[in-house]
Each structure stands twice: as C-alpha cells, then as structure tokens.
C-alpha cells in the first residue's frame, strides 16, 4: 500500500482543506454551515469558513506546530471543531478527537498516548479535565478554550488561551507570513497522517487509528463524490444535522467530508437538549444515526402514540400497519416501490406519514443510514415503511468506514449490504472473519506496531474481527464479533449479539448482555428502557420512584419475562436465555460501563455485576 501511495503525484492530491478553499473561491457567499446560537440559525459562508481555517492554521504555525504534530479537539459538534480540524490538516498536523463524555482519566490517557501538543477544549468543563492531568501530558503546550465562561478572569494559567486570542494570533501570523499556510498545504503528502481516530476500546485501552490523507481522499472519492451511499450523490442542496460525536469516523464522514467534498450544508444543534427540536427546524435531507438513536426515536413514537387521543391513535395504528406491509414489500424488493405500495403510501402520506415525518424532523430525508452497531431489522422496516429510505451500512475506523453498504434500491434487510465497488472484501472460510483490502485501509495504530500487525497482515488485508457470511452471493451478513462468540459448557458456539439484538428490538428493553461462556446455559443481564417502561407503569397506575425501583417491580419482571420467552421461541434450545437479572442502574460512559460510542463493555459488565451473574447460576 505504501508503494502505491508514493506513485500518486502531489498535483492530483486534493485534500479536504483544498476542497474548502476551492469552494470559498467559487461560491464565497453560499452557506457552508449553520449553527443555532442565541436563538437563531447563524450562517457560516464558505468564505467565512475558509477564513477561519486559514486563521487557525496560521495560529498553529505561530504556536510551532510542525508536520506530524497532534492537535486534540475536545468539544461538542460546532463550527470551531471543523475550523480546528481543517486548520490542523492544513499545516500537516494530526487531528485527535476526544469524546465530550470522556472522563478525566480517559482524557489523560488519550492526550498522553497521542502526545498532543495543542488541545482545543470547548469550555471550562473540558479544560478542567485537561488541567487536572497536565502533569501526565508532557507534550501538551497549549489549551485553547472556545467558551470563556468560567475561565476568563478566574483561571490564571499560561497554558490557557482563548479562541479569540488564537484567531488574533493567526491574523498576526498571516500578516507577517501571508503565504506560510499555502506553502505548508502544498507540501501535503499522500501518506501524511491526517487524523487519529481512537477505537472505542470494548476490550482493551483505546488505540489510535492513523488515517492518512490518502485514506480520507479514497473515502471521499468512494463514499461522497462516488455516490457510495446516496443516489444521486450528495450536493450543495442537501442539508445534514451534525449531532453525533465528531471523533467517530462515521460522523466525521457525514459532517466534515460530505460538507467539504459535496458542499452539503451542515447544521449544528443548539444544545443536547434541543436536538429533537432542531431536527424539526432543519428537516435534513441526509441523516446518519446509530441504532440506539433510531430505536429511541421509534420508542418515542410508540410512547406518544399511546397518549394520543383515541381517534388519532386508531387512525395512526391503521396506517402504521399499512406502513408495516409497505415495509415488507420494500424489504422483498430491496427498497423499490411497486405500484401498490406507492399507491398505499400516497394515501397514507396524506393521513399519517407526512405529518409523522414532519414531527420526527425527517420529512425531507432522502437518505438515512444506520451504522456503527447492529440494528434490529424491524426498526429498519418501520422507517422504510413510513417512507424514510433507510440503509444499514458497515465499516470501521480501520478501513476509513469503507466496507459495505445497502444502496438505494438494493436494500437487503438483515445484511450490511454489498461491498463498495472497486474494493476487495473477503470472508475467511475457516473462521468466517470479514477482511477488506483497499486504499482506505489505515496506516496502523498510533505507536502500536504490535497491535497493527495483529489486524493488518502482510498481504495488506485488514482483519475486521467481525464474523460474517455471504447472503445471495453479494450481500454480507454479520453474525458477531470474533471475541464475543460464546462457547457453552456443552461446547456449542453461540453468537450472543443475535440474541441480544432480538431482545433489544423490544421497545421496553434498552440493554441486554447475554453471558454463558463456559457455562451450562445462557443468562442475560437486562436493562429496561426507563421512558417506555415508565410510561407503561404510569398507564397501569404503578407508582415508582427511581430506575432501580421500577426495574424491581414484580410487574416489570413479568413484562420482561414475556419478552424473553417470546424471543426464546425463535432460537434453538441451547441459544435460549434461561434466566435473567436486571441491571441495577442505567449504564454510563463515565462509570466505565459503556464506551464513548455507547457500546457495552462486555468484560467490564461481567466483572462489575459478577454477583448478579453468579446468582443466576447458583442453586
């Protein structure tokens, strides 16, 4: 791979920074992004975007950022995230994104491991985390804070610098060295590392995935301009809402890369609390979500429906049933309408779907995607039925999110779609492991050649660690993670995620962790969805106080037992969950039970709730 990248000459290289500069030249007054602040959607034009990137880049030069130096960004999604990211890439630095939910200990690890020189911290909260662990991060020279609130006037630390000061520094540097950034940009090479994406670390400590400029450009060519996801390809007329963490490769693709490469207008929500309201205001055309989000929205629909007036409820129920049938047909046809589904949808659009989609903020969605974790087919079917073209996609940080995708009109439920054209993907016949080989394969784990060697073999194949199988020859179905496969005491191989997903398809269940490695039978730790179960309890007149109290009600246990029994019927005897216990709390990233991407840390859970597990095997 390294050999190939050298073959590509610089003059054909077009980084995302170059693309933004081009757009600023071609259409300076067009809207690049909007952020809702102070109650209105403030617009950022391409010219303003570029100016900011340029100023940040100059400032980074002034701060002594050399090619290959790391700049960390610890913030919610906002324009400054993009300014920082592109400014860093412009001076051939490496962007390291931190999850806003990262607790102090993880911040220390990430800053120290990446050796970041500069940290762009959103506010007092994030700056505090870094200041607390300054000693553990010897490379960290500057903390730039975006929101001055609580810092200005109170903190007196030379390491701190405000965002306006950064821009002023950039302006000063630009005045002194007008072409310094341009020159640095021109030096950009194909195998420059552009960003480190830290894996979520369900098993060990997070590892930094090095993505090069070449990786990113390949991804942009395949996914965005090549139309790997949407059809027709994204354009300036598309709107996206950016709300998932930008340090995740998928959100980076949908926010930063779609924006710079295709001109998609990115919109940043006002705050976490207002995402739903903002979604309704923006009515994006392209929407990416992780399964948890899609499940949550579906659960909300059910809750709101339960409390709707009887007439509305009855009518909507009818149309959702119709949507279900439409969804069935679409599943059969791969997402293409027949005459009858189109007719049924047309009538239903008047009575239900238009309004429902409007309420969900998905009225104008022309392409929706789910990725980053497996999703229950029923959830996808719901969205397809009400007219939101939903596609499950598959990829990972290590292959710059390029592996497979369900394409418009060729959707196959229960699979993650077909490999992108022009890439190599194979499934190991012995282990069933999925492997990819293409220019998007990463350059290795940061400062961790041993781990790199584990997943990137001599032939350039990336071992994904996911077990899969071919469906109908061209579609890939993922059965489980390699490491999660349970071998019961009876010697049977069981894929827990399938059972877990079947359980989590119920709106009442939020978490399900199936356990049974080297055990006589399977058990499950179950976490209820407090919103839906709470609503259910309220309707039945069950008083409850806390999450724990709610899950300890005998009625709740009965409810869940019913769900478990129902799911068990679909599985062979060895794959059935014989007993279950409730998690005493909602799982949390900050308590170390979930990863930053909200995936369950299996090993941590098994250890944390050991008593519960042992209890289920006792007797």
């Amino acid at each position: 791979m390294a050999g190939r990248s050298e073959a590509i000459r610089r003059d054909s290289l077009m980084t995302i920074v170059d693309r933004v500069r081009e757009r600023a030249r071609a259409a300076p007054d067009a809207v690049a992004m909007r952020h809702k602040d102070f109650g209105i959607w403030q617009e950022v034009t391409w010219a303003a975007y570029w100016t900011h990137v340029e100023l940040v880049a100059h400032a980074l030069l002034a701060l002594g950022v050399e090619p290959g130096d790391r700049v960390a960004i610890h913030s919610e999604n906002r324009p400054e995230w993009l300014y920082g990211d592109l400014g860093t890439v412009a001076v051939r630095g490496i962007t390291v994104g931190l999850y806003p939910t990262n607790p102090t200990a993880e911040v220390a690890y990430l800053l120290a491991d990446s050796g970041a020189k500069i940290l762009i911290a959103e506010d007092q909260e994030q700056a505090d985390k870094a200041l607390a662990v300054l000693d553990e991060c010897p490379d960290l020279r500057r903390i730039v804070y975006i929101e001055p609130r609580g810092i200005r006037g109170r903190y007196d630390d030379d390491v701190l610098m405000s965002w306006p000061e950064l821009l002023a520094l950039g302006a000063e540097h630009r005045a002194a060295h007008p072409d310094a950034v341009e020159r640095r940009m021109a030096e950009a090479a194909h195998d420059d590392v552009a960003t480190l994406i830290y894996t979520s670390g369900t098993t060990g400590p997070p590892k930094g995935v090095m993505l090069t400029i070449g990786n990113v450009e390949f991804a942009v060519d395949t996914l965005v301009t090549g139309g790997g996801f949407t059809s027709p390809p994204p354009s300036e007329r598309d709107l996206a809402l950016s709300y998932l963490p930008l340090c995740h490769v998928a959100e980076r693709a949908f926010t930063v890369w779609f924006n710079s490469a295709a001109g998609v207008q990115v919109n940043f929500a006002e705050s976490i609390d207002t995402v739903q309201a903002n979604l309704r205001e923006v009515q994006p055309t392209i929407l990416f979500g992780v399964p948890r989000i899609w499940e949550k929205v579906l659960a909300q629909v059910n809750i709101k429906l339960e409390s709707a007036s009887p007439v509305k409820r009855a009518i909507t129920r009818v149309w959702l049933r119709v949507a279900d049938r439409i969804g069935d047909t679409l599943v059969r046809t791969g997402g293409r309408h027949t005459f009858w589904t189109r007719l049924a949808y047309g009538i239903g659009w008047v009575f239900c779907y238009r309004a429902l989609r409007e309420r969900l903020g998905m009225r104008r969605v022309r392409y929706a995607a789910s990725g980053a974790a497996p999703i229950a087919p029923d959830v996808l079917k719901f969205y397809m039925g009400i007219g939101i073209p939903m596609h499950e996609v598959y990829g990972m940080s290590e292959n710059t999110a390029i592996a497979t995708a369900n394409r418009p009109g060729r959707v196959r439920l229960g699979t993650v779609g077909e490999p992108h054209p022009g890439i190599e993907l194979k499934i190991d016949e012995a282990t069933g492991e999925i492997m990819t080989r293409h220019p998007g394969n990463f350059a290795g784990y940061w400062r961790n050649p041993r781990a790199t060697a584990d997943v990137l073999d001599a032939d350039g194949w990336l071992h994904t660690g996911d077990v899969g199988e071919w469906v109908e020859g061209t579609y890939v179905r993922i059965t489980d993670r390699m490491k999660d496969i349970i071998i019961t005491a009876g010697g049977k191989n069981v894929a827990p995620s399938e059972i877990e997903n079947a359980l989590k398809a119920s709106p009442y269940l939020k978490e399900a962790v199936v356990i049974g490695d080297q055990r006589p039978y399977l058990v499950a730790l179950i976490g209820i969805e407090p919103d839906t179960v709470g609503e259910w309890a309220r309707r039945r007149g069950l008083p409850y106080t806390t999450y724990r109290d709610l899950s300890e009600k005998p009625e709740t246990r009965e409810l869940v037992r019913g769900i478990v029994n129902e799911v068990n019927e679909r599985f062979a005897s060895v794959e059935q969950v014989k007993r279950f216990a409730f998690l005493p709390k909602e799982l949390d990233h900050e308590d170390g039970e979930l990863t930053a991407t909200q995936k369950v840390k299996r090993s941590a859970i098994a250890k944390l709730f050991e008593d519960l597990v042992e209890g289920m095997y006792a007797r």
Partner: protein
Amino acid sequence: MALLTFEDVHLSFAGVKAVDGVSFEVGPEEGNTAELLAVIGPNGAGKTSIFNVLSGVYRPQRGRVTFIGEDLLLKRPHEIAAMGLARTFQNVELFHNLTVLDNLMLGRHHHFRYGAFAALLWYGRARRAELAARAKVEDIIDFLELEAWRRHPVRLLPYGIQKRVELGRALAMEPRLLLLDEPVAGMNLEETEDMARFVLDIRDELGIPIVLVDHDMGLVMDLADRVLVLDFGRPVALGSPAEVQQDPKVIEAYLGGTHGRTE
C-alpha cells in the same frame, strides 16, 4: 462610597416588628470585584421584608436606605427597578401565561425608549429596539442555559427552571445590584448546584454585586463573602462566613436553636 446603604431600618405590621433596626452596606469598596452578601435567619426573621423595603413594596416606619447615592424610600417600585436594583422572589413571581422569552423581555422594559405610537406601527425605532432587546435576551438564555424552554409558557415549566427564568428576568434588567430571595428553595441537589454555579458566574463574570437571602446554611457559607444573621427582625451578627460561624450569639440564635436547619 457604598452602592447600597441600609441604615437602622424599622418596619412593623400591626405592632409586629418585621425589621427591627437592621443596618448593612453592600460594596463596591476598593477595587472592582463584586461582593456577595448573604442574609440568613430562620423563617420569619425579616429577610424578605428587607427586600420588600428595598424594592419599594413596603415603607418602613423609620430608617434610611440609599442606593447609588439616592434615597430609595422616596421612590416607587418601578423607579427603583429603573435605577438598577433587580430582584427575584421567594415564591416565583413570573408572569405565568407568558413565554420564557416574553418574561425576559419584560425585564428589559425600562430600557426601551419608544412610545405607544411607535408600538402601534412597529416600524423604525420600535422594531429596531425590539430586535436589539431580543439579542440581549438571547445572551441571557445562553448564559442560563434556557435554550430548550424559550417558547414555553412559564407555568408549564418545572419549578427549578422557573426559578432560573426569574433569575434571567432580573439579569435582563441589567442591574447594578441583584437581590436573590431564596434562590434554591425547593430545589433538588442538581438544580441547587446549577443555581450556585450561575450565582457565582453572575458575581465573577458579570461583576454584579448580589444580596442573597436564604436559610440554607451550607449554600450561604460556600457562596457568600459576608453574612448578615437575623433573628426576629433583629441583626445578630455581620461578618465573614468564618467569623459568623464562630459567633456565640449566632450559635445560640440560629445554629444551635430549635429552628436551625441541618446542612
């Protein structure tokens, strides 16, 4: 010169002494750091009555109150507000049918300069003034993190948020002195912490001096620069939190008394 002086004020209702010879001053003394004076005392100690005297709702029988050098006792409530004295109330006194935005905009009432005729036309000065006021109000919404509730009628909001809106309304007045009447009463721990953070930010970031009334000792001792302790309308002690906590009179009247509250 002190921003506010409250001198030997006596107020009684039908013979019951609500405020009985209370005196205090509020900064700024030297330098420009705003100070936070806390007034504590058990229920019925006359804390709220002091605020009602300050904002012109009650007229004391005796005493002198000046604010930025002017005699407050001759002023009517709205004139006092226009001078830059803003307050919140013990039991939230918001305009319940209005939205959060309108409540905050009302805080800016005395900053507007256009008349009825301009209002009827909504043109020129009136329109410009309203747009500018909206921008100012949005600053407060941002400061107090009220984004999600902007368009909600306040009567539908949770109590803790209502308290925050009321604080926002007081801030919208761009006050020179802020009076907070039991800002955390009836709040849970999380809401209390939020409110404490806002109060400190107002003092430190916005530089607005604050007089705060409460009976929650823990909060007061954490936040206040100086503490005035009252009992049945009479001043018991005035000093730094540490000094006050040591004062035997305070311990007897308040901390050790039957109506003392645990922190």
